C-alpha cells in the first residue's frame, strides 16, 4: 500500500513546477544534446525520472488561478491523472535513456530533443489540466510537437506528408472538440472538469457536445475511420513511435473520455456511441493486422486495436469494465512501449523491420530477448502479468456477446504481435550473422518494463487498492472499493483467456501476411488524393473572383475592368435597396422651370455627355468631357456659387491639359470590349447614374436637420474674422482637413516624381 507515501506532504504548486521545469527544459534541451551528443538524452531523463518520483509522492491536489475570459490555469492531481503522470514520466525516462543509445550523432538532434521534452511536458499538462480549455491548449501542443517529431526526417517527402496528415487529422478533431467544450460549458456553466457535475439526460445540447468531443478523441486516439494517420506516423524514429504513438499521445483521447465519463455518461448516446466506435476500431485493426509484415506497422495496428477496446470498455457502466480499463491502460502502456523498443533494437541490429526476417537472435541479444519475452507475456495475457488481469476483467463483463468479440479481437491482435516481435525473433534458426546485442541503454527499457508488467501484477493486491482504486474513484465520480488480485481461479473465464493467448500466439507463429495492399487503406489514399487536389479545387472555386485565381500576376486590365464593374454594381444595388427599404419615397422637390441660359447649358452638357461615349478618338473624348465639366461649372455659376464654379473650371482645365499630354504618348485607340460587355457596362453606368439622381432628389426632399452651415456662416465674421465663409472653413473651422489635403498634394508630387524618374528594372 503506497497510501502513506503520497500524504507525505510536498509543498504546494508541485504541478506548476513539473510543467514549468518541463517547458523550460524543452528550450534548454537542444543545447544539452548539442553539447553532450546523443548521450545528452540520458541526462535529460532525469526530468521524467524526477516527475515519476513526484507522481508517487505528491498528494492529490488542485491548483487554480484565472487566465483569460473564464479560462483558468487549473491543475488537478487525482487518481486518473496520477496514473497517466506515472505512465508518461516512467516511460519517458526509459525511452530517453533508450534514445541515448539509439541515435547516432547527427544535425537537428538538438531540435529533436527540444520537441521531445516539449511533448512530454505538454502530455503531462494534458493529463493534469482540470480546465477543458487548458486541456485543449496542451492537446494541441502535443499535436504540434508530434508534427515536428514525425517530420524529423524532413527531407523525405513521405515523412513530411505523414507529419502533415497526422497534424491535420488530429487538429480537425481538436477543433470539433473545442466547439464541444464550449457547448458543454453552456450546459454545465464551467470549464472545470471537477465542477461540471453531470449533464442531465434530457439536456438538449448533451448529444451534440458529446459528438463533438468524441470527434476529437477519435482522431487523437486513432479510432476508425480516423485511424489512417497512425501507421503513417511510424515514419518517426522509434523512440517517438514508442512514446507518442503507442504509450502516451494516442491515449489522450481515451484519457479524455475517461475524464468526462462521470460528466457525460448520463447522455443517452454515451454507451452506444463509445461501444460502437470501440468495437469497429478493434475489429478493423485486427483485420488490417493480417496485411503487414513491417514491425512498426503491426505494432501500430495492435495499438489501434487496444485503443478501440479501451473506448469500448469506457462505454459500459459495468464495474468490471472499468477495472479492465484501468488494468489494460497500464498493461498496454508497459508492454507496448517495451515491444516497440524491442522492435527498434532488432531493426538497429539487423537493418530490417520485416518481422519475418528476424529469427534466432536470442543468443546474440540475450537482454533484448529477455525484455521482449517478458513484455510479450503480458501482451499475450499469460498468468502473472498485468495483461492477464486486464483481459480477465474484460471477459468478466456481463451481458452482450459483443464484449467477448471485442476482447477476443483485441487479445488475438496483441498476441499475434507479441509473439512476432517479442518471442519468435529470438528462437529458431539464425539468419543474420552480424547482429550483436544493442548497448545497455537500449535493452534497459524493455527489461524494466517487462519486469514491471509482471512485478506489478503479482503485487497488485498490495497497491491496487491505493493507486487503482483512486483511478476508479475518478472514473466513477465517487470512492470505490474494488478488489485486485493477480489470479482469479480456474473458471470459464480463465479457460477463455488461456485459449485466446494460445490462439494469438499461434496466429503470430503461423499466419503470413495476406498481401501488400490492405483493403481499407483506401481511406489513406483518398486523403492523399484530396490533399493533392485541394489547391486546384480551391483555385476553381475562387477563379471567378477576378485576379485571385491568377498565378501569373494581376496584369490583365480586363479583369480590373470587370472588378470595377462589380464594385459599381454593388454600390448601385446598395443605394437602390436603401432607397426602397422604407416603402416608396416621396420626392418633395418643387419643380422650377429653368431659365433660357440654364436650359441651354443642360442640353449642351447632356448632349456632349452622350457624344463622349461614341467619341472615335481619345482627344475628342477628353475635349468633350471638358465641355461637360465646363457646362456643369457654368450651372454652378448661375446658382450663385462662383467659388465652386471657379474650382471646377480649373480642375477641368488641368485634367484636359494633362490628359492630352499623356494621350500623346499612348498607343492607338482601340475597342477591346465585346458587344455584350458594352451593353453590360452601359447598363451599370445608367443604373448608377439613375440611383444617384434619385438619391439626390431624396436628400433634397427634406431640409437638413441641423444647420451647421448656417452656424458656420454666423460665426465667420465675429469669431473667425473672415467675410468669405468658404475661406474661413478652409483655413480655420476645418483647417485640419486642409492640412491633410496639403499632405496629399505633397505626397502625390513625390509620387509623380518617383514614377517619372525611378525605374528599378532599368537599373538592374
Amino acid at each position, binding site marked *: 500500500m503506497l497510501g502513506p507515501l503520497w500524504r507525505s506532504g510536498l509543498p504546494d504548486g508541485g504541478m506548476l513546477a513539473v510543467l514549468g521545469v518541463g517547458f523550460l527544459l524543452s528550450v534548454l534541451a537542444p543545447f544539452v544534446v548539442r553539447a553532450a551528443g546523443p548521450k545528452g538524452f540520458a541526462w535529460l531523463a532525469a526530468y521524467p525520472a524526477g516527475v515519476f518520483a513526484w507522481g508517487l509522492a505528491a498528494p492529490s491536489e488542485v491548483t487554480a488561478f484565472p487566465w*483569460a475570459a473564464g479560462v483558468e490555469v487549473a491543475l488537478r492531481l487525482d487518481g486518473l491523472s496520477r496514473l497517466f503522470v506515472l505512465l508518461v514520466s516512467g516511460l519517458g525516462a526509459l525511452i530517453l535513456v533508450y534514445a541515448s543509445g539509439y541515435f547516432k550523432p547527427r544535425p537537428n538532434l538538438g531540435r529533436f530533443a527540444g520537441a521531445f521534452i516539449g511533448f512530454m511536458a505538454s502530455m503531462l499538462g494534458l493529463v493534469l489540466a482540470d480546465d477543458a480549455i487548458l486541456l485543449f491548449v496542451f492537446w494541441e501542443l502535443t499535436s504540434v510537437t508530434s508534427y515536428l517529431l514525425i517530420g524529423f526526417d524532413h527531407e523525405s517527402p513521405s515523412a513530411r506528408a505523414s507529419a502533415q496528415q497526422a497534424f*491535420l487529422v488530429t487538429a480537425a478533431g481538436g477543433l470539433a472538440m473545442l466547439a464541444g467544450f464550449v457547448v458543454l460549458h453552456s450546459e454545465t456553466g464551467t470549464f472545470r472538469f471537477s465542477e461540471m457535475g453531470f449533464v442531465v439526460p434530457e439536456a438538449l445540447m448533451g448529444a451534440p457536445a458529446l459528438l463533438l468531443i468524441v470527434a476529437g478523441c477519435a482522431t487523437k486516439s486513432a479510432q476508425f475511420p480516423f485511424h489512417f494517420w497512425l501507421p503513417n506516423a511510424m515514419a518517426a524514429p522509434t523512440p517517438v513511435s514508442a512514446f507518442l504513438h503507442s504509450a502516451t499521445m494516442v491515449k489522450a483521447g481515451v484519457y479524455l473520455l475517461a475524464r468526462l465519463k462521470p460528466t457525460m455518461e448520463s447522455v443517452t448516446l454515451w454507451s452506444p456511441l463509445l461501444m460502437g466506435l470501440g468495437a469497429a476500431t478493434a475489429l478493423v485493426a485486427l483485420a488490417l493486422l493480417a496485411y503487414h509484415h513491417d514491425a512498426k506497422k503491426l505494432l501500430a495496428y495492435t495499438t489501434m486495436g487496444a485503443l478501440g477496446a479501451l473506448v469500448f470498455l469506457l462505454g459500459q457502466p459495468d464495474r468490471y469494465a472499468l477495472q479492465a480499463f484501468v488494468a489494460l491502460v497500464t498493461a498496454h502502456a508497459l508492454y507496448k512501449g517495451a515491444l516497440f523498443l524491442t522492435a527498434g533494437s532488432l531493426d538497429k541490429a539487423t537493418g530490417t523491420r520485416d518481422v519475418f526476417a528476424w529469427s534466432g537472435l536470442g543468443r546474440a541479444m540475450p537482454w533484448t530477448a529477455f525484455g521482449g519475452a517478458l513484455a510479450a507475456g503480458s501482451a499475450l495475457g499469460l498468468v502473472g502479468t498485468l495483461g492477464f488481469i486486464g483481459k480477465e476483467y474484460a471477459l468478466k463483463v456481463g451481458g452482450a456477446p459483443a464484449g467477448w468479440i471485442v476482447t477476443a479481437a483485441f487479445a488475438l491482435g496483441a498476441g499475434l504481435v507479441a509473439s512476432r516481435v517479442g518471442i519468435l525473433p529470438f528462437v529458431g534458426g539464425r539468419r543474420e550473422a552480424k547482429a550483436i546485442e544493442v548497448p545497455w541503454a537500449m535493452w534497459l527499457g524493455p527489461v524494466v518494463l517487462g519486469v514491471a508488467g509482471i512485478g506489478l501484477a503479482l503485487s497488485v493486491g498490495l497497491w491496487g487498492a491505493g493507486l487503482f482504486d483512486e483511478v476508479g474513484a475518478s472514473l466513477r465520480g465517487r470512492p470505490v472499493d474494488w478488489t485486485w488480485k493477480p489470479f482469479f481461479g480456474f473458471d470459464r473465464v480463465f479457460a477463455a483467456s488461456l485459449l485466446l493467448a494460445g490462439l494469438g500466439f499461434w496466429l503470430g507463429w503461423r499466419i503470413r501476411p495476406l498481401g501488400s495492399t490492405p483493403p481499407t487503406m483506401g481511406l489513406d489514399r483518398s486523403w492523399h488524393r484530396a490533399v493533392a487536389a485541394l489547391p486546384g479545387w480551391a483555385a476553381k472555386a475562387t477563379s471567378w473572383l477576378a485576379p485571385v485565381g491568377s*498565378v501569373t500576376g494581376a496584369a490583365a486590365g480586363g479583369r480590373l475592368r470587370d472588378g470595377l464593374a462589380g464594385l459599381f454594381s454593388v454600390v448601385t444595388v446598395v443605394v437602390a435597396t436603401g432607397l426602397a427599404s422604407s416603402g416608396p419615397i416621396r420626392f418633395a422637390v418643387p419643380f422650377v422651370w429653368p431659365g433660357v441660359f440654364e436650359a441651354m447649358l443642360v442640353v449642351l452638357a447632356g448632349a456632349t455627355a452622350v457624344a463622349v461615349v461614341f467619341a472615335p478618338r481619345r482627344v475628342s473624348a477628353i475635349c468633350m468631357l471638358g465641355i461637360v465639366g465646363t457646362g456643369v461649372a457654368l450651372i454652378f455659376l448661375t446658382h450663385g456659387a462662383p467659388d465652386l464654379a471657379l474650382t471646377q473650371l480649373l480642375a477641368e482645365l488641368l485634367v484636359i491639359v494633362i490628359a492630352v499630354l499623356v494621350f500623346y504618348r499612348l498607343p492607338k485607340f482601340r475597342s477591346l470590349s465585346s458587344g455584350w460587355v458594352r451593353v453590360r457596362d452601359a447598363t451599370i453606368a445608367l443604373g448608377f447614374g439613375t440611383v444617384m439622381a434619385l438619391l439626390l432628389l431624396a436628400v433634397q426632399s427634406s431640409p437638413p436637420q441641423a444647420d*451647421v452651415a448656417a452656424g*458656420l456662416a454666423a460665426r465667420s465674421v465675429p469669431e473667425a474674422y473672415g467675410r468669405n465663409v468658404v475661406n474661413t472653413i478652409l483655413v480655420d473651422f476645418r483647417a485640419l482637413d486642409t492640412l491633410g489635403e496639403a499632405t496629399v498634394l505633397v505626397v502625390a508630387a513625390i509620387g509623380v*516624381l518617383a514614377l517619372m524618374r525611378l525605374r528599378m528594372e532599368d537599373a538592374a
Partner: protein
Amino acid sequence: MSALWPVLWPLLTATVMGLLWRHPVWHRWIGVGACFAHVFIAVHLMGEANGRGPVVTTLGGWKPPFGIVFVADRLGAAMVLVTAVIGFAIALSSVRGIDARREAFGYHPLVQTLLGGVCGAFLTGDFFNLYVWFEVMLVSSFVLLALGGERRQMAGALHYVSYNLVASATFLIGMGTLYGSIGTLNMADVAQRLPQANPAVAAVVVGLLTVAFGVKAAVFPLFTWLPASYHTPPTLVSALFAGLLTKVGVYALIRTTTLLGPDSAPWLPGVLVVVAVLSMGFGVLGAVAQDDFRRVLSLHIVSQIGYMLFGLALMTPLALAGAVYYVLHHILVKTNLFLIGGLAKRMCGTERLAGMGGLYRRSPGLSLLFLVPALSLAGLPPLSGFWAKLFVVRAGIEADAWAGVAVALACGLLTLFSMLKLWNEAFWKPAPQEPTEPLWTARRKWMAVPVALLAIGTVGFGLFAGPLFAFSERVAEELLRPETYVQAVLGGSK
C-alpha cells in the same frame, strides 16, 4: 494630452525628412527615433483614455459640431498604439531593408505620412476628416506601392488605386448624402441625429459607408484589389500594409456599426454575418490555391478579416471583445509573417514556393520565428490567434450562429493546412538549388530583430490573454454604449 499628437508627430517627422531630402541615410535614423517616440506618445494617450475615459480634443477651439474633433477612446487609442508599434518595427527594418534608390525618392517620409494618415483615421471624430485621412493613407500607400516602378508593381498599383478611388468616391457620396440630409459631419452628432432622419436616406448613408469601408477592409466580394497588389512592392511595404491598412477599414466598420448601426441600420448585422462568412471561406480558399509565399499570406488577410467581422456582426459583448482582440493580435502577426516572408525570399532568392526550401536545416532561428506567427495565425494555443478564435467562436456558439461557427472552424483548419504548406515548402523541403552565399548577412541579422520583437509580442499576447481580453471587454463595453461616446464629444449640449 492632445489627441492630435499621434497624427502630428509623424507628419512633423515627414516634414523634417523632407527638409533633409538630399540625405536619405539620415532619414533611417530619424525614422527609428521618431517611431520610438511615437510609441511613447501612443502609450501615454492610451493611459489617459483607459484611465479617465475618452480624450476629446477640439481643434482651433471650435466646439463640435462646428469644428473638427479628435476622440481617443479605448478603441482608438489601442489602435494607435499597435500602429505605433508596427511603425517602429518597420522603421527598424527599414534601416537596412530598403534599397538606396527607393530611399532617395522618399521612402522614409512616405512611411511617416502613411502612419499619420492611419492614426488620423483612428482618432478623428468627424466623418469628413476621416475621409481626408483615408486620402492621406491612400496616396501615401499608392506611392509606396508604385515606388520603384517595376512592371508588376505598376500593375498592382493600378488595381489598388482604382478600387480604392472608387471606394473613396463612394465614401464621399455617402458624406454628401449625410451632410445634405442631416447637415452635420461630427460622428457623435450624426449618431444622435441619424435615427430621426428619413429612414431611406439613413439606410443609404450606412450602406454607402459599409461598402466604402468594406473595400478598404478587403471583405468579400470587394477584396480583389488586395491579392492583386500586396505581393508586388518590397516586402517591407507589404508588411506595413498587411498589418495596418485593411484594419483601418475594419476599425471604421466597427466604429460606424456600433455608433450608427443599432438605431439607423438594424439590418446591418445580418448583412455583416453573411459577408464575414463568405470572406473567411473565400479568403482561405484563395490562399490554399496560391503557390507564392506572399500571395498565400495576402489572401489569409481576407479570411482573417472575416473572423473580425463575424465578431462585430454578432454584436454581443463577448463577440465584440473578441473582434477587438482579433484585430490587435492580427496586426502583429500579419506584419511579422510578411517580414519573415521577406527574409525567406532573400535567403532563397525567390518567393515562389517551388523554388524555396532548406531553411529549417540551415536556419533553426528563422524557422522558430516563423512558427510562432504562423501557428498563431492558424489558431494554435496558447498563441494569440487561439484566443482570438476561441472568443469569436464561443460568442458564435452562445449566439447560436452555428453555420458561422462551422465555417470559422473549417477555415481554421484550412489556415493550418496552408501554414503547413509554407513550412513544408520553404523550411522542411530541401532547397532545389543549394545557395552558396551565407544565409545570415549582417543586413539580414538586423532585419530579424523586429521579427523577433514581434514574435515575442505574439507569445506575450497569448500568455497574457487575460488582461488583454479584459481590456478588449472594456472596449466592447464602451462600443456597446455609444451614448458615452456621444456624451464625451458633445457634452451635455445637443
